[in-house]
């Protein structure tokens, strides 16, 4: 294990009118050093606008850390990260604001950060609630709804900021298996709408079905990447073969 010191460079370049096919994210030689471990090691990765990338891999493989490096929740230790636009994030544990109604959870950031007026923020929020199928929960507090509903509200909340790139950090891992479907259904809708998405997930079937590209990480490195077909049906590396054996 090599200890890495120098500072990572993160460039956020706000580019209007990014067209489908333009590069939205580019990472070169990314390292993330935690006090006791090297979580991400020399990762190169880039993706296009409109692309849907699934990151898979065993626990502790650095996939969440890499994702959190993109929006600054983890400060990268070394490397260069160019982001052409804004990000939104959906967390494993939802992290809704419990003291606000679902509607206010969604309108709060646009009103505070973008100074959107209340009326248009609420109109937008209602259409997002419709998208995630929870229009009737607008005035309910997060403590009163199920986990699957919470996660759908969390997706609506992230979308309200109109991010160029959506980051999903194991969005169904905290949910009971029988209700993951409602969350995946919403994500499928987004995918059909050509949103740019990076999804860290353990849902192999979903990755296979929705992703344009699948990235397999292990030990902080990208071991293999390719189309879902290549990754799931024709894995090259032993580690990926081993991993697929354990999850199926």
């Amino acid at each position, binding site marked *: 294990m090599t200890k890495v010191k120098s500072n990572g460079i993160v460039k956020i370049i706000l580019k209007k009118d990014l067209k489908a096919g333009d590069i939205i994210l580019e990472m070169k030689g990314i390292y993330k050093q935690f006090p006791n471990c090297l979580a991400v090691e020399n990762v190169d990765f880039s993706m296009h606008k409109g692309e849907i990338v699934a990151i898979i891999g065993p626990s502790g493989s650095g996939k969440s850390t890499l994702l959190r490096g993109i*929006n*600054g*929740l983890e400060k990268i230790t070394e490397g260069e990260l160019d982001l052409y636009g*804004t*990000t*939104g*994030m959906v*967390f494993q*544990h*939802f*992290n*809704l*604001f*419990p*003291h*606000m109604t679902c509607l206010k959870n969604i309108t*709060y*950031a646009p009103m*505070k*950060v973008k100074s959107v007026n209340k009326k248009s923020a609420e109109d937008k929020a209602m259409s997002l609630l419709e998208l995630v199928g929870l229009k009737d929960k607008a005035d309910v*507090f*997060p*403590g*009163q709804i*199920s*986990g699957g509903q*919470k996660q759908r509200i*969390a997706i609506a*909340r*992230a979308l309200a*900021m109109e991010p160029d790139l959506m*980051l999903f950090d194991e969005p169904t891992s*905290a949910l009971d298996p029988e209700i993951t479907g409602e969350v995946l259904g919403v994500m499928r809708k987004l995918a059909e709408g050509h949103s740019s998405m990076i999804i860290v997930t353990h849902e192999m079937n979903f990755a296979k079905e929705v992703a344009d590209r699948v990235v397999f990480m292990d030990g902080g490195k990208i071991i293999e990447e390719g189309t879902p077909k290549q990754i799931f049906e024709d894995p090259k590396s032993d580690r990926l073969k081993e991993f697929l054996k354990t999850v199926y």
Partner: protein
Amino acid sequence: MSEFLAGFQDTMAYVVTLMPSLMAGAWVTAKLFVWTLVLSLPLGLPFALGSNSKFWPIKAICQIYVFIFRGTPLILQLYFFYFFLPIAYGIRLDPFVTSVITFVLNYAAYFAEIYRGGINGIDRGQYEAAHALGLSKSQTMFGIVFPQTMRVILPPVSNEAIVLIKDTALASIITVGELMKASRGAVNRDVDTTAYIIAAIIYLGFTFVMTLLSNHLERKYSRYDSREVD
């Protein structure tokens, strides 16, 4: 029976003569209480945030402040400020102002610790969600963190406020003419403890009002159910 009635009437007449001075004392007590709360409640916040600071000198100052004011008797602090300023700087402050300053510094230390506990109880995920949405640090603190701590800090804060009602009686030792001093004056003068009983009833009245107020606030801030389901 008529003897008892006559006695009762005498007592009531005596009580009526006591009321002006006791009510004047109660008014000073109320002012002392309100001034202390109004100033110490906000002052606790910078000390709470300072104690959490990553910049060690600020952290050290805040922790030492809390250590000193929580670790020494309030009565000692009152005497200290009452005598320190005149002796050291020749400044003679009004005893009422001196006791407000002392109470504020003392109670802010307690409130700081209560706030700090409340702030530290907020899940890291709340900060992460706020960051991911692009909220600034102050938007995160004032919009997300503080409102959620309200529910947790209200019971200990109102408890401290009730303790403060009774602590105001200490101001009598530095000659503030509050309720305790007024009642003691009457008792010493008339060799009759009735004034203490009335003072006790007035203190209980204050406590009762404070209890109602805190119950109302606790209900208001517990509207939402914050049980986090993982």
